[in-house]
């Protein structure tokens, strides 16, 4: 967990400070210095335009992280609302929601996102939209099942007995109890979103090629794989490290909230 947190912290700080810490300008290209292998001048080498890869990675991290945080933020919000409605009141809202979620589970998320972007055209907002469509269901599922077990607890009946409104019960009494399961899911969700963003952009159906994200860097690397493998290797390593960081934190949080699960 500590390792995971430090990975996330380091990468996010570097991303935030990118304009200050990057050795070159991300729009600087020198066609004479194309596809250079790592050296003391460009310590991760240069890409097909002669731009410094380390600089690209730093600026790419900004975009990849921003997209992931927005997607997860929206997904948590939607999941919280629908999950609470369904779990707290049950009945027909619950039935409709569960049918929708079942459907989304049978509809492979990545294929849906891919089709949405293919039809709307690659752009950052379409990418966020596509990832949200598939992202909210896991949160709704968790919130719903937690709500269903929580609402039978005594503190809820006591609150009801003294006349606290349903909305107030949900927001001030029930939501704080969701912190543990939801934060674990946020960690894993961020890991998955980073991966999906990169995968979609890699296929050319995510971040448009004129912007830099880790996925677009990999996609560029694929075209020069044989002559300049370093263009692919470093963005991939960066993605792997960050995803590992989020997975470690998710795992750590789960252990922290539920020590029994470690056996």
């Amino acid at each position, binding site marked *: 967990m500590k390792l995971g947190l430090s990975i996330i912290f380091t990468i996010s700080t570097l991303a935030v400070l990118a304009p200050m810490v990057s050795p070159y300008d991300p729009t600087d290209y020198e066609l004479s210095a194309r596809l250079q292998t790592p050296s003391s001048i460009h310590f991760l080498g240069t890409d097909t335009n002669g731009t410094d890869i380390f600089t690209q990675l730093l600026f790419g991290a900004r975009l990849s992280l921003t997209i992931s945080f927005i997607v997860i933020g929206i997904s948590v919000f939607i999941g919280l609302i629908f999950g609470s409605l369904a779990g707290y009141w049950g009945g027909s809202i619950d039935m409709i929601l569960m049918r929708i979620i079942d459907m989304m589970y049978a*509809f492979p998320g990545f*294929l849906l996102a891919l089709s949405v972007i293919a039809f709307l055209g690659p752009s950052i907002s379409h990418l966020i939209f596509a990832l949200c469509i598939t992202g909210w269901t896991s949160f709704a599922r968790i919130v719903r099942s937690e709500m269903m077990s929580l609402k039978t607890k005594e503190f809820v009946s006591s609150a009801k007995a003294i006349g606290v409104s349903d909305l107030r019960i949900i927001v001030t009494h029930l939501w704080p109890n969701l912190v543990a399961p939801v934060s674990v899911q946020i960690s894993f969700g961020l890991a998955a979103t980073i*991966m999906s963003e990169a995968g979609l952009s890699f296929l050319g159906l995510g971040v448009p090629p004129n912007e830099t994200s880790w996925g677009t860097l990999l996609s560029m690397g694929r075209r020069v794989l044989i002559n300049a493998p370093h263009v692919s290797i470093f963005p991939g390593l960066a993605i792997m490290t960050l995803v590992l960081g989020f*997975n470690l934190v998710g795992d750590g949080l789960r252990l922290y909230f539920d020590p029994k699960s470690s056996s």
Partner: protein
Amino acid sequence: MQRLIATVFILWGISTISFLLLHLAPGDPLDQIMGNVGSATNREALRHELGLDQPVVIQYLSYLRQLITGNLGTNLVTHKPVSAEIITHLPSTIVLGLNTMLFAILLGLPLGIISASSKSKYASLFFNLFSLVGLSLPGFWIAPILIILFSIKLNWLPVNGQDEWSSIVLPTVSLGIGLAAALLRMTRSSYLETMNEDYITVARAKGLSEWTVKFKHILKNAMTPIVTLLSMQFGAVLTGVVITETIFDWPGLGMLFYNSLRARNYPVAQGCILVVALIYVILNFLTDVTYKIINPRLRQ
């Protein structure tokens, strides 16, 4: 029966979403199909041929009517029936998918058991980190790395295509490594949980051999969550093939889907989505049957 209704509902929903996706997307679908080429008369002829001059509701109903009879429409470019194209591409994907599952089971299950049985703290730390790294490896990155290493540097395996039997090795490994890692983790935790059950202590106390306890008692009881994971992961494999197949030029459903999306050949893309959803639904059903085979307690 209730299951059947739910299944039909899911398939109806997915076909509706994919229909809406196409018809609510901004712009004239014909622009997407033809681009800016083709004369106005050609355009109108094609519009009529595809039924796009009808109101959306009529189009939707005729689309559903076609689906019920198993007609997935025609490929806009080759004018062949979509179902025929899917049938030619599906076997490659199924072969790759099954190979991947086999690879993951052969790697993940034994490693999971070993990691659960070992008492050393370092071993458990090692397996934990190892499996998390495996889970964090993007398949679309592993694939190029494997190509560089085994096809270009070592020249052991073909870069792409399907010409030799060994062509399947690299796609399988790049798809299967994450799956193996997930399986390792699930096997480990489920095995550890079962290990502490009273009936395992009883089995040991009866003097059964360690081998019998491990495989007949612990593993068999630990299988239910592992089977769940496997069936869910097969769905993930079906999605993962889109990237893996395009990288390795593997002529399966994933490549067909990707190419048809890029070419705006929407009846084909729609057909692929429906077939994947159908496979997923069938798989879910098979999983339930498997539960009852491995766990007699669920048979009532």
